[in-house]
């Protein structure tokens, strides 16, 4: 995709430029730096750790590479969307200023000192300045990221339909299960329950205070189970999603708020992960990669749920909407 190519280009060029600039700026100062240099400070006082200049530069390069990779991941789901671009470029700029600032502070503290122990302190003022400058960099990045059109893949032109006879009432029920999520849910719940038990047993193997951590595991497990399966219903009321073995109703979109519906293949990477994901491209309930039922409401926002046979669900939704509009 062309938009992704430009994202890869931006992050790639940034990463390479940064990796080149870091030694290019620092190495000429080598003669004015002690060897090793001070690289670690605790609190606001004098340095308490040292390392070679090369190691410090490599760590800065690594930090910058991580930030670029993070931006690539952040922008991957929708580089064409203005909101995604704003966020991505902002984090890239803030990260650039932060990396440069960290390097600058370290070099400045060591400059013209005979030993790393004589290096200057890392005061709260310098740190505050670093964070402030990063925020300012992020702001500039956000403004730059906003430039350009807010585009996304258009909804398919001709919505598919299913014929509904006069006086007929049509209903579609689709199901989706995620076996891995079910396994994860039961594993966490079981492990947590065991932990709570062991923590509460007098003179047990676990300290008594660990019961809360174990309980958190149980809660996480129950949450995973609640999102491990879903039932998707299309009827005259609209689209309804119920999750988990208890079929908790989690989302309902009334028919009169639905613009158009279609089926498309989506991967968890596109949705931003598994589970209930809210993103700039819309909300996705992603239980497994593959066929998804996508609904665009009258306001242009999109909701997608991974479900088998989404094509028929979408067709029925379109037909119901049209027959209710007339």
């Amino acid at each position, binding site marked *: 995709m062309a938009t992704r190519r430009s994202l890869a280009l931006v992050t790639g060029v940034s990463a390479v430029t940064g990796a080149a600039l870091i030694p290019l700026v620092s190495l000429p100062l080598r003669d004015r730096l002690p060897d090793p240099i001070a690289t670690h400070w605790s609190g606001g006082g004098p340095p308490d750790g040292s390392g070679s200049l090369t190691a410090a530069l490599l760590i800065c390069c690594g930090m910058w590479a991580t930030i670029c990779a993070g931006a690539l991941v952040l922008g991957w789901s929708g580089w064409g969307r203005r909101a995604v671009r704003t966020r991505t470029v902002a984090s890239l700029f803030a990260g650039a200023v932060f990396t440069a600032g960290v390097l600058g502070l370290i070099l400045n503290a060591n400059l013209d000192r005979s030993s790393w122990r004589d290096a200057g302190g890392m005061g709260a003022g310098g740190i505050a300045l670093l964070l402030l400058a990063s925020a300012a960099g992020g702001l500039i990045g956000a403004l730059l990221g906003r430039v350009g059109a807010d585009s996304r893949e258009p909804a398919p032109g001709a919505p598919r339909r299913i014929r509904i006879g006069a006086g007929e*009432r*049509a*209903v579609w*029920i689709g199901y*989706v299960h*995620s*076996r891995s999520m079910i396994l994860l849910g039961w594993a966490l719940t079981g492990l947590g329950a065991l932990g709570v038990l062991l923590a509460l047993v007098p003179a047990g193997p676990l300290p008594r205070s660990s019961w809360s951590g174990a309980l958190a595991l149980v809660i996480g497990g129950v949450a995973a189970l609640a999102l491990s399966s879903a039932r998707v219903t299309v009827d005259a009321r609209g689209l309804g999603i119920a999750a988990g073995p208890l*079929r908790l109703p989690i989302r309902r979109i009334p028919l009169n708020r639905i613009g158009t519906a279609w089926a498309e293949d989506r991967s968890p990477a596109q949705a931003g992960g598994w589970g209930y994901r809210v993103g700039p491209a819309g909300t996705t309930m992603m239980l*497994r990669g*593959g066929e998804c039922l996508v609904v665009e409401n009258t306001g242009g926002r999109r909701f997608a749920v991974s479900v088998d046979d989404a094509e028929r669900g979408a067709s029925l939704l379109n037909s119901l909407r049209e027959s209710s509009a007339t």
Partner: protein
Amino acid sequence: MNGASIISIMLLRLAPGDPRPLHEQAASAIRRAITAGEVAPDERIPPARDLAQALGINPNTALRALRQLREEGLLEFRRGRGIRVAARPEDGHLVERARELVAEAERLGVSRAQLITLIEGV
């Protein structure tokens, strides 16, 4: 694909002129889905609770419809594994035709026994 998935689309006729009780209408909607091949043999049918909610009928009515289809040999109830389709689309079609025949006989005042004799004579 993760796990078993069950899909079905059902068209339930709710024409005001339909004199049949609701459970018969629900049964015929599910039968039609089987006949049309929308749910293949051995595929799962949504549980009665889901069917009832989707069709706006009482869960007991939905269960009654499912039981009727089991008696017709179209569905199979398996403990812990849900309700599955036990017949080919053609079988569903045959049941549908048989029901039409019975209804026609009733309309003409032909008794069940007479109808059975008639079929055996074919």
